[in-house]
């Protein structure tokens, strides 16, 4: 196994240091390290961060390999600086059995670019009727700890309560897609001034907030862990703040696109901006940034949702919701959180690596940059800005909402257990 000596990188954006990676671990960090025989990587000016962990990725395999595969999604993730991604369960067939989650896990192993951690469905077929075999998935080779019907909300309160309780047995967590379905029938975009004018059926903030309010009460009542997917409204942030203050074991994520984009993107009806939950208002964006900065929101998760061209090149209502995120997530966080002074680099590491790993109960991810820790890390050039070209993305799909937008930061290298998955900004396999 090749050993790497990274020269002059700045761990967490601090003082420059050399980092020696040996046998999949960080062997030492210090000034002017000399290691005969190691491959030397000049990292002057680059920021070193622990490898990113995504709690929310749609890899589309099995079922929609034309939109993304475990391999292409893994490559996109590595290029984005990720070393682990949670693969959502809404595949075809649904990842609601040990068989399917093990298949996805194995495909991830074969690709070998990131740790692909399958998410198990909460209910059979995402139908919201009865629990899937959560324990079997937890006990499988995939060691599932995060369960989610994402795409669908577990809207039945009794079923949600049982799911929250049941996963306590194996320290699992239910990740809720918070959307009261009766309030979002036919919904197309955030309900407000713009939906009124554009004539698109509204997705009210209250539909998200009502479920979050209910679920934090349930989680508190049964003493279970709850994770809230893709929080999108200012009201949701307030509810989470309130619940955390009461000691509820609730965590939450926000997507890069909800940190950057608003419902103004719907003008022009380009469905690349159609996503669920929808892009909200500038006030919501500000509240989400503030919530992420003060820790009310624990993590940034991409909700990377590849879609085939024909599912996006259509009229708005016919298009599928979702947008790409893996390759631009860190850049968007730099733009919205670092360059605005809301987070420092340690904060970025915390929200994009440490906390998501803890939520997913991943013991070998989200670890600090310190001797003896697994060598999962990325090197970022924060000084370059580049315009996003969807055609140049590693994802099989092209539905990036950032097309044509200039964003800061470029992932130069990613290491997974000491092996470079990305070098010079290029995927290594």
């Amino acid at each position, binding site marked *: 196994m090749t050993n790497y000596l990274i020269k002059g990188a700045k761990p967490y954006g601090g003082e420059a240091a050399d980092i020696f990676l040996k046998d999949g671990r960080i062997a030492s960090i210090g000034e002017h390290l000399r290691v005969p025989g190691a491959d030397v990587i000049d990292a002057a000016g680059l920021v070193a961060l622990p490898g990113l962990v995504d709690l929310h990725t749609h890899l589309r395999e099995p079922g929609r390999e034309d939109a993304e595969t475990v391999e292409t999604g893994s490559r996109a993730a590595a290029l984005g600086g990720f070393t682990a991604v949670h693969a959502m369960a809404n595949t075809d067939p649904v990842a609601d059995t040990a068989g399917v989650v093990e298949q996805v896990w194995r495909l991830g192993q074969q690709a070998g670019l990131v740790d692909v951690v399958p998410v198990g469905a909460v209910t059979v077929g995402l139908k919201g009727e009865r629990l899937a075999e959560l324990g079997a998935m937890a006990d499988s080779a995939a060691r599932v700890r995060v369960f989610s019907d994402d795409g669908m909300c577990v809207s039945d309160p009794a079923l949600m309560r049982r799911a929250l309780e049941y996963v306590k047995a194996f320290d699992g967590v239910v990740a809720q897609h918070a959307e009261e379905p009766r309030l979002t029938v036919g919904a*197309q975009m955030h*309900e*407000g*001034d*713009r*939906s*009124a*004018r*554009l*004539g*698109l*059926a*509204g997705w*009210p903030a209250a539909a998200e907030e009502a479920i979050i309010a209910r679920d934090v009460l349930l989680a508190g009542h049964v003493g279970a862990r709850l994770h809230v997917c893709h929080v999108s409204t200012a009201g949701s942030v307030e509810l989470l703040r309130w619940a955390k203050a009461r000691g509820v074991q609730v965590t939450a994520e926000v997507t890069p696109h909800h940190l950057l984009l608003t419902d103004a993107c719907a003008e*022009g*009806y*380009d469905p690349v901006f159609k996503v669920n939950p929808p892009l909200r208002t500038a006030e919501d964006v500000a509240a989400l940034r503030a919530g992420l900065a003060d820790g009310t929101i624990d993590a940034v998760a991409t909700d990377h949702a590849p879609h085939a061209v*024909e599912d996006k*090149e*259509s*009229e*708005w*209502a*016919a298009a599928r919701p979702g947008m790409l995120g893996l390759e631009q997530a860190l850049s968007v966080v730099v733009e919205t959180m670092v360059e605005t002074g809301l987070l420092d680099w340690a904060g970025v590491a915390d929200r994009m690596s440490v906390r998501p790993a803890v939520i997913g109960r991943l013991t070998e991810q989200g670890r600090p940059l310190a001797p003896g820790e697994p060598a999962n890390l990325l090197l970022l050039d924060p000084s370059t800005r580049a315009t996003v070209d969807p055609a140049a993305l590693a994802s099989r799909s092209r539905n990036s909402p950032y097309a044509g937008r200039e964003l800061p930061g470029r992932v130069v290298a990613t290491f997974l257990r000491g092996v470079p998955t990305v070098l010079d900004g290029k995927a290594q396999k």
Partner: protein
Amino acid sequence: MKRHLLEAADLDRADATLVLDTAAQIDAALAGREVKKLPTLRGRTVVNLFFEDSTRTRISFELAAKRLSADVINFSAKGSSVSKGESLKDTALTLEAMGSDAIVVRHHASGAPHRLASWVKGSVVNAGDGTHEHPTQALLDAYTIRQRLGRLEGVRVALVGDVLHSRVARSNVGLLHTLGAEVTVVAPPTLVPVGVGSWPVEVSYDLDAVLPKADVVMMLRVQAERMTASFFPSAREYSRRYGLDARRMATLPDDAIVMHPGPMNRGMEIAAEVADSVRSTIVEQVGNGVSVRMAVLYLLLGGRSE
């Protein structure tokens, strides 16, 4: 004029006035003539691309295009390759490859004409998209008001009914505001969109309070299925609170007019005796539709050389 007519906001005051003036000149030029045809758009092809049934709108556009000597292709999406999964984009590119200069599109999805406009080189005219807009309806309504009342500036218009789902309402709110009219939307609160506060209108839930101050009452079609989704309890209650009957009509100022874009639910939002009264412009609206659409086609297509 912009290349496309997708929504009322595509017309500034000068453009909107130009459309109305042009329609009036066309009306005058054709009045009493045996030959109702003009050679203006000879050699141009106008495609009526209708994803939703609307015989009256399609015929109005067809007549408008034919009176300007354009070649007209009616393309109904029902039963065609479109219903078999061909995308809107493929359809658009096919029509363009066949040499269409303008596409008049009616679609059940809000914003479909905007998408179409981003794919084709010719002009796109929105003939009604989902719950978004129907700009030529608003133009013919404005034309009718101007014809009856002699002005638009300061005219008080009550827009009554299912504003939430009405493309006619959205286009009229935009265009009438552009032309200086004062609009009040009147509806049960369930049928007023959240976000109406950003519209240049007054909002009222009380039809009786609005009528004595209205120069124009524009009744919107209310579909019975709204009842099952609990937007209001029953047709009877809706009609009692928001329907225009003879008693209510009597409270209007003397010169006030009653409009309806059609098709009407007689007995629901409008009583038969109101629809057939001298205040009613419903028949004129249909005729004016052809003139206004001729003006739109002429102004969009007339000067385009690419």
